[in-house]
């Protein structure tokens, strides 16, 4: 019997309050410790909100993050942080890593500790057995493609980022009770390199479990790549950008996250439509189906993102009711 869920992938937008905490920190008006205390408190509120709405798998909203690369790349030896670069076709910009030597995660990088704090919140709510907390990370293909490196190929960069940073981090996260969520928009953005992306997916598959999230373009041209991930992974596809689920399922992906709630448009989706999309995926052969946002919610104003998260919660309840799960 199929399993249904509703999930949040990636970031949740900074509320006015969170923005003001960042502003104070950037101006030097508060110290790092105070910043962490305030952001931690806001993150806790957000996690409680996600639990209340009925989401069963989510991230901590990434309130400490500027984009999917930062601040992770600041905790990596061998890397400098560049000026602003456009994030695909969005009016949104990130700071890219400049590779000076082989990237290696620094001792004491706080990513795992942040996720652990989220797990603690769930334990406090006695919700750990019901919900899964994920920690978003840039996938090796996306991170390698965003890197500025002279004389190093994307292929080499994939290996280096994986072995020096992503693999150790992902293993540590799993140990702490978090599920790594790899963001791989690059894989669908440029399917012409799918042989390379397949290699990157094989590396990820070695971790054994996690989420693999694609967005901004349809996933069916890289179905074979997605098929490499194996049963431990939930694969998120952007249904707002295109369909082609048959090919993805046909390639062996049975655990699917349907990115059907548009993170790039304020227009509200209809609960009924989302529910039938999920059922439809099961009819096509999926065994576990989540309804999710298609991409980072940071592209939306916070009040709209809040409504969309509530919508996802309603979708899950309705699916549970109608499928008897």
């Amino acid at each position, binding site marked *: 019997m199929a399993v249904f869920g509703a999930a949040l992938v990636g970031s949740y937008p900074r509320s006015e309050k969170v923005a003001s905490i960042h502003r104070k920190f*950037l101006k030097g008006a508060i110290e790092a410790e105070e910043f962490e205390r305030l952001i931690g408190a806001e993150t806790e509120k957000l996690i409680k909100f996600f639990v209340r709405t009925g989401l069963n798998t989510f991230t901590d909203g990434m309130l400490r993050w500027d984009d999917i690369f930062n601040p992770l790349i600041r905790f990596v030896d061998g890397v400098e942080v560049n000026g602003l670069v456009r994030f695909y076709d969005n009016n949104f910009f990130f700071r890219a890593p400049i590779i000076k030597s082989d990237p290696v995660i620094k001792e004491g990088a706080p990513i795992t500790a942040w996720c652990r704090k989220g797990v603690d919140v769930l334990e406090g709510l006695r919700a750990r057995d019901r919900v899964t907390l994920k920690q978003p990370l840039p996938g090796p293909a996306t991170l390698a493609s965003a890197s500025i490196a002279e004389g190093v190929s994307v292929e080499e960069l994939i290996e280096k980022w994986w072995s020096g940073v992503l693999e150790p981090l992902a293993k540590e996260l799993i140990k702490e009770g978090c599920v790594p969520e790899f963001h791989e928009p690059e894989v669908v953005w440029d399917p012409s390199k799918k042989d390379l992306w397949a290699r990157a997916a094989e590396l990820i598959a070695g971790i054994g479990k996690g989420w693999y999230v694609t967005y901004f373009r349809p996933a069916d041209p890289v179905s074979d790549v997605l098929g490499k991930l194996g049963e431990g992974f939930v694969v998120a596809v952007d249904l707002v950008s295109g369909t082609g689920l048959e090919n993805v399922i046909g390639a062996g992906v049975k655990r699917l996250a349907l990115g059907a709630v548009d993170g790039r448009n304020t*227009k509200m989706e209809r609960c009924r439509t989302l529910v039938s999309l999920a059922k439809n995926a099961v009819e096509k052969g999926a065994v576990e189906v989540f309804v999710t946002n298609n991409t980072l919610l*940071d592209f939306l104003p916070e009040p709209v993102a809040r409504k969309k998260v509530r919508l996802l919660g309603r979708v899950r309840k309705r699916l549970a009711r109608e499928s008897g799960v």
Partner: protein
Amino acid sequence: MVWRKVELPVLPTTVIGSYPRPKWLREFIAGYREGRYKEEQMREAFDDAVIAVLNDHREAGVDIPTDGEMRRDEMVEYFAERIEGFKFYGPVRVWGNNYFRKPAVVSRLRYRGPMVVDEYLFTKKVTYSDIVKVTITGPYTIADWSFNEYYPSKEELAFEIARIINKEIKALEEAGAIYVQVDEPALTTHPEEIGWAVEAVNEAVKGVNIKVGLHVCYSDYNILKPYYDRLNVSQFALEFANRGFRDLDVLKGLNKELGFGVVDVHSRRVETPEEVAAAIRKVMEYVPPECLFINPDCGLKLLPRKIAKQKLKAMVEGTRIIRQELRKRGLERIELRKDLTCP
């Protein structure tokens, strides 16, 4: 009003549009938002700020000034607030902790009446110059930087906005403006849309009988290149200082006037007049001097005011060096042109 003959020195100097708001104005706006000042007082402060900006432009020696867009917080927001059918849900992040109030289109868009005509009339009244430039955000950029909840496609949305912008440009023409610049920083960001995006710009300038420039910045100009002829504007104002005056090859085959960006608005280092002159010499290998305007790369508003003014001075002084050289060739003055081609 109709088109009139205006003479300018060769290589007319101008600005792209925005200029740093004086510190006192920023404080006044904050006070106004807290309810400490009346609307009337706010308007007076904006007027005073425009006079201050024009004074900076005059002292720097700029031939064609703008009002520095003193009244506009942001280039899309300002127009979205004045067109019926837009709604603001809240800010969205653009990078780091920087935000933009991205509007949403929630119903059919309607032109509610002039949006920047008063800006133009005031600038015209107080300026030192013979002509001023009025900037207006283009239909594609407004569409691209908005959420579309209403129109079946972004293309349909962009064309609806184009018809509204067209009304505004015609209202400006009616009011006596002879030089309008359409700003389209987003124009090349989705290469697969450029074909219709260009036609949306054309729709916005349809039937207009004054000079229209088009500003596109921080873009891959190779995407624009195949459309040079298709765009019914008389000038492209492009950014080149930021890219170290590389990529000038994209100007091969340009048959329009060029607004040449000679100072970098994202760097606080003030260029020297000699650097500006060298850049102009270089671009003259591609575009004849009678088809060249000289301007900064983009709006100056993110710079400290003092540096913005110094950059304008350097731009004007560098231009004067080349004018001396051109005078020896008998080229001193040109006429403001609205033709779609140059020479």
